[in-house]
């Protein structure tokens, strides 16, 4: 509360406090008088004007994240506080993920959006999937968990970072966003387009960087809870402490839900009941030019479900229990000898485990037991060198060690990789900037890869800038594609990962099971990384301080996609399969975002994405007349291009409309959002394995979500609201339970104590 003024003292040098629209002091502002005189602003956001200023002298006030303000000495001397307006559309936010250095959104030559704490709060969500699904161009798709889809590419191709470090643990390629609780997230950076030039594998469609809270106050503690339909409860506590350059931040979250059931006729829930606990401890110490940090996080989840197993026509019930464990440790040391150099050494150690057990209810017979354990260790050194004042050079190198041990894989498998990345950020003039980067990966499994990227931006004016970015992305073969050793006894087929094919085929041959090899054995096992080339180009158009239009066109051309294909015909008539680089896909589209601040209390925004995602081999087959379909009497017809609907699970049209309103009298905040997902193909029905029939589409739906919240003067926050208020259901979206209502409260203890 440093900005408390003493109104009875009216000296010429009264301190002036710089505040945001909500009245909170802005401590990081700076004030310029004339061309080069800078006035210091203290940590409470206050500054004092020097004496003997002329009345018509111009003062400029800047603060990161806010529109700059110009004011005359004559006007300012009558004020006790000076209000700044936040830059619209999070344009002023600093982004780390895009360049691995701090850079504000409006200066980045690539498409980036930032989801702020306020927006996260307004969604009323508990898990990360509920926040991300409301963003333009992002879809959450149910496939072995809640997976993200970006630019038409699935979760496999999106890198998820926690405070800049990669999170591991995927099931069938999907990173389950429900593993991440949102109450300790400060902001989320969404970086679109490939970033393999700094991150390597997986950063093909884009990167999500989750930045957790770091509280600068000497002491803070709060408790936050939300309750909602389906007996879902989310309880979080956090405490932080800052003194003598030490900082400690602790967070604990407990989540539970009964799940829900969209098909009551079938035993078991659509979403299983589960409980999850998340803990995080962040420790930091600054000491002169050194900074030390240790971040750690643990996650534990247990779920139970029932399923029916059909055997010879009779259904028997079985209990399915599963657990997931996740542990990360991330120490970082930063040394800043002077303003031109910064050296960072960091490492990330993670363990991800899953265990699942299926037992018959009547006799505890174990139908299936699966264990999976992945260990990941990365050490990385990064050097940032400021050249003159308009160039920043970044050099990084690292080593990666990964092991995996699982029921379906033989032995303990180990992978090693080394990498080197180089990035140059250059602002030749105020109008231009260029970021170039290249990364080389050397991997024990798939050899070497070079991933370049170049991005540039031109500011036609303060209001309008154009950006373009060309980059290469890649994704290494995953464990399943390399290591799987699977035999479906009842159907009689085999699936071998690329590393297991040679051994597998020899075994089958020695057993006399192989009838015919379908591929040249020299091709076995040579699995390459999937690779992409992409362009992203678009604009930021600030029509006024309160009106922003952003657009981005993208095209991703992906080749060497890995799919299963038969490599041997067995005497049983069935096949043995393995993984091969066989297919090519192209996704392209446009993302548009419109943000309009009508008054300081009312903001409206709208987003839209058009997406066209095709399998290029299918298009080729259609053009050469080799693709067929069946009519309602199962007779064959030829497929034409106009019949083809592209890849499954992609909506051609999607969009959102958001209204955020602060009622001035009651102080109630209202956030109303309509999230639309256009019709999409759910799967093949007519037998030709592609999307080409009206019966293969799921209906479009719009989810209306509303949150109401009120912050009392002592800091207590109360909220209520609901998701999917019109209760729209879609059997092809099993993560949508229908209408969900919630209430919540946040109790900031430190403020309650202070205000007494």
């Amino acid at each position: 509360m440093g900005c408390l003024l003493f109104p009875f003292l009216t000296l010429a040098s009264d301190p002036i406090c710089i505040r945001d629209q909500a009245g909170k002091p802005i401590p990081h502002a700076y004030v310029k008088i004339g061309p080069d005189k800078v006035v210091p602003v203290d940590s409470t956001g206050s500054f004092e004007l020097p004496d003997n200023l002329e009345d018509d002298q111009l003062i400029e006030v800047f603060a990161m994240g806010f529109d700059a303000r110009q004011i005359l000495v004559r006007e300012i001397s009558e004020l006790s506080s000076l209000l700044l307006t936040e830059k619209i559309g999070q344009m002023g936010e600093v982004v780390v993920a895009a360049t691995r250095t701090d850079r504000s959104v409006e200066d980045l030559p690539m498409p980036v959006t930032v989801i702020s704490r306020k927006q996260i709060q307004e969604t009323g969500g508990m898990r990360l999937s509920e926040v991300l699904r409301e963003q333009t161009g992002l879809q959450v798709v149910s496939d072995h968990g809640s997976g993200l889809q970006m630019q038409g590419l699935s979760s496999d191709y999106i890198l998820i970072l926690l405070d800049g470090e990669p999170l591991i643990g995927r099931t069938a390629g999907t990173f389950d966003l429900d593993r991440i609780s949102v109450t300790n997230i400060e902001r989320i950076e969404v970086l679109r387009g490939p970033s393999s030039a700094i991150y390597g594998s997986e950063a093909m469609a884009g990167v999500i960087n989750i930045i957790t809270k770091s509280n600068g106050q000497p002491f803070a503690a709060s408790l936050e809870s939300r309750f909602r339909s389906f007996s879902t409860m989310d309880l979080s506590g956090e405490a932080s402490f800052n003194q003598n350059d030490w900082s400690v931040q602790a967070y604990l979250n407990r989540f539970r839900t009964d799940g829900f059931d969209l098909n009551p006729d079938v035993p078991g829930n659509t979403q299983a009941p589960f409980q999850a606990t998340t803990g995080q401890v962040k420790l930091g110490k600054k000491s002169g030019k050194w900074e030390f940090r240790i971040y750690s996080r643990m996650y534990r989840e247990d779920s139970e479900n029932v399923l029916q197993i059909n055997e010879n026509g009779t259904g028997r019930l079985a209990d399915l229990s599963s657990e997931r464990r996740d542990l990360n440790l991330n120490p970082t040391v930063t040394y800043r000898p002077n303003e031109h150099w910064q050296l960072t050494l960091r490492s990330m150690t993670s363990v991800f485990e899953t265990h699942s057990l299926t037992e018959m209810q009547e006799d505890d017979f174990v139908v299936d037991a699966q264990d999976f354990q992945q260990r990941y260790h990365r050490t990385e050194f990064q050097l940032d060198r400021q050249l003159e004042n308009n160039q920043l050079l970044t050099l990084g190198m690292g080593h990666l060690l990964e092991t995996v041990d699982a029921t379906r894989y033989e032995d303990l498998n180990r992978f090693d990789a080394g990498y080197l990345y180089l990035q140059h950020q250059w602002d030749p003039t105020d109008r231009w900037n260029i970021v170039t980067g290249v990364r080389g990966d050397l991997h024990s499994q798939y050899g070497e890869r070079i991933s370049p990227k170049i991005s540039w931006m031109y500011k036609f004016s303060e209001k309008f800038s154009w950006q373009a970015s060309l980059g290469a992305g890649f994704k290494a073969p995953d464990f399943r594609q390399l290591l799987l050793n699977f035999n479906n006894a009842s159907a009689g087929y085999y699936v071998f990962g690329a590393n297991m094919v040679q051994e597998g085929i020899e075994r089958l041959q020695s057993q006399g099971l192989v009838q015919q090899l379908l591929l040249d054995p020299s091709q076995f096992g040579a699995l390459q990384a999937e690779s992409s080339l992409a362009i992203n180009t678009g604009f930021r158009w600030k029509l006024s301080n309160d009106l922003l239009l952003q657009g981005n066109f993208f095209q991703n051309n992906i080749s060497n996609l890995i799919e299963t294909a038969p490599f041997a015909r067995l005497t049983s008539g069935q096949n043995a399969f393995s993984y091969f680089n066989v297919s090519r896909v192209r996704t392209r589209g446009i993302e548009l975002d419109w943000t309009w601040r009508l008054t300081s209390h009312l903001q409206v925004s709208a987003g839209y994405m058009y997406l066209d995602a095709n399998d290029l081999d299918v298009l080729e087959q259609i053009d050469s007349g080799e693709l067929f379909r069946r009519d309602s009497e199962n007779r064959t017809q030829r497929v034409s291009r106009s019949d083809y609907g592209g890849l499954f699970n992609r909506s051609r049209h999607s969009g959102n409309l958001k209204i955020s309103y602060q009622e001035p009298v009651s102080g109630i905040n209202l956030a109303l959002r309509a999230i639309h997902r256009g019709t999409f193909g759910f799967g093949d029905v007519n037998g030709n394995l592609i999307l080409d029939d009206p019966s293969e589409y799921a209906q479009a739906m719009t989810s209306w979500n509303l949150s109401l919240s009120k912050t009392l003067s002592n800091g207590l926050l109360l909220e209520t609201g609901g998701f999917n208020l019109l209760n729209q259901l879609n059997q092809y979206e099993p993560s949508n339970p229908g209408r969900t209502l919630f209430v919540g409260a946040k109790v900031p203890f430190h403020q309650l104590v202070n205000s007494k």
Partner: protein
Amino acid sequence: MNKWNTFQAGILLLALSTSCEENTVEEPEIELQAVTVENLHAPGDLMDRSTGEITEVRPFRYFSLEDNQMVEDREGDWDIGFKGTTIIVNSGSSGSGTAQASVVTGTFDEITSVPATADFKSDREDGMAIPTGSGNGWYNYNSSSHIVSPIPGRVLLIRTNEGNHAKVEILSYYQDNPPLSEVDPMTTPSPYFTFRYLIQPDGTINF
């Protein structure tokens, strides 16, 4: 049990006189018509699902394209046979006849003659004329929905024991030829083959 009926027979011979190749002036019009065979029930072997071991071997169901009827046993004059997802021809390892098959791509109606590229084969221990396994021969098996669907655009060309040519399109693996969108692999009875075929009885390769 074996409920099956056929749309009989429309081979209309407008002229009974057989014509030789040179006689082009007064060539008689022969209008061939496709025959649809419905619900040919051909259950596969019984298997212990946990071990993959076959517990009961069931017989093939044999069919004569020439006569448009079932044939009781393996020694009879059948052309093709069905069991589960496997379709055999009467030759080589499957039977004592001379029937052969070739799998070609196209729509049933477009195939107006046996293409020169058609490669007629007999069944052999190391490879069936109509390859087995999903995606290889006549069907796809979707491992997530568990539906067996005839591959659109696959036509089976059969050379019968008598040396005539027929084209065959498998329409469905499920009872009463339902549209695939209505198939529930757990409840819709299978395997009940529905197929249509057209045979050229004059020994030429044109349909």
